[in-house]
């Protein structure tokens, strides 16, 4: 089982959509996947067709005393997800859950090949904890000046990989920034996820992009990412 934390270098990099899409693509390739939402914004579930007004999630279950696993949802035979759950700000502050221990339990069950963590930008402590538990971290960047400046001033997980999302090849600036990163950022993945309306539509359509628009550029890009994960990040069964 490999645990991957997906985390934007800042808000708005499309991390949640990519997490949902990658989870779906890995399941399409025959892997067993669990996607966990670590963000109190609780948006990942909407990519998996969950009704907006359902409060179900791991934090809600934990707070109710029934245990985090009771928040889990099955999307298809190979893909499960754990929504965060709907809590007020005050309730959310009081949730404490030992995820290190939970992940060890999940590892011991041998059910999942992959666990994807959708790690929030606006909640630094929870983000740092989630990333420290993961086997690998994928940091999402947009090829723009703000991401570039942040790379120079923002501490990021040691040994993380960088993935450019929403790349627009028609933009001179984006091309230039990508070229510069290709020369200077050794952990940059050798492909990008392109800007594509299909990805933007995936939340509105309440489905991962590969399922909503199987023929789209985004869908192809995500399959590339899933295969890259299979080749580079898969942990060998013990």
């Amino acid at each position, binding site marked *: 089982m490999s645990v991957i934390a997906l985390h934007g270098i800042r808000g708005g990099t499309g991390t949640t959509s990519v997490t949902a899409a990658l989870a779906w693509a890995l399941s399409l390739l025959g892997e067993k996947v669990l996607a966990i939402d670590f963000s109190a914004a609780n948006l990942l579930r909407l990519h998996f067709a969950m009704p907006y007004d359902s409060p179900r999630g791991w934090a809600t279950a934990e707070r109710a005393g029934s245990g985090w696993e009771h928040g889990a949802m099955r999307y298809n035979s190979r893909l499960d997800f754990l929504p965060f759950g709907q809590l007020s700000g005050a309730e959310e502050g009081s949730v404490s859950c030992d995820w290190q221990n939970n992940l060890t339990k999940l590892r011991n069950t041998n059910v999942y090949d992959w666990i994807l963590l959708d790690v929030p930008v606006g909640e630094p402590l929870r983000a740092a904890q989630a990333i420290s538990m993961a086997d690998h971290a994928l940091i999402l960047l947009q090829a723009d*000046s703000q991401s570039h400046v942040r*790379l120079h001033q923002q*501490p990021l997980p040691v040994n993380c990989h960088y993935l450019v999302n929403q790349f627009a090849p028609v933009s001179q600036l984006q091309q230039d920034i990508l070229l510069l990163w290709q020369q*200077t*950022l050794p952990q940059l993945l050798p492909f990008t996820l392109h800007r594509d309306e299909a990805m933007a539509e995936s939340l509105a359509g309440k489905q991962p992009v590969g399922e909503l628009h199987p023929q789209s550029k985004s869908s192809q890009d995500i399959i590339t990412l899933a295969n890259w994960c299979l080749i580079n990040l898969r942990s060998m069964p013990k």
Partner: protein
Amino acid sequence: MQQNRIDDNEAKKDKNDDFVVLSHLFSLPELHYIDIASQQKIPQVLQRWPLLAELAQIHSSVSATEA
């Protein structure tokens, strides 16, 4: 009844320790600016965008000092 209370300072110390542990897992990203000037096209990129040039220059001089 006093004995069971957690000392505020002790509790804070624990929290700080968590931050220390986490801080070891994070650092500024490794950027390899050395010799980029010799790469094709990069000088044009830096000429086009002053901000990129500024960051490249600061980082190259830091790398050179460290090396």
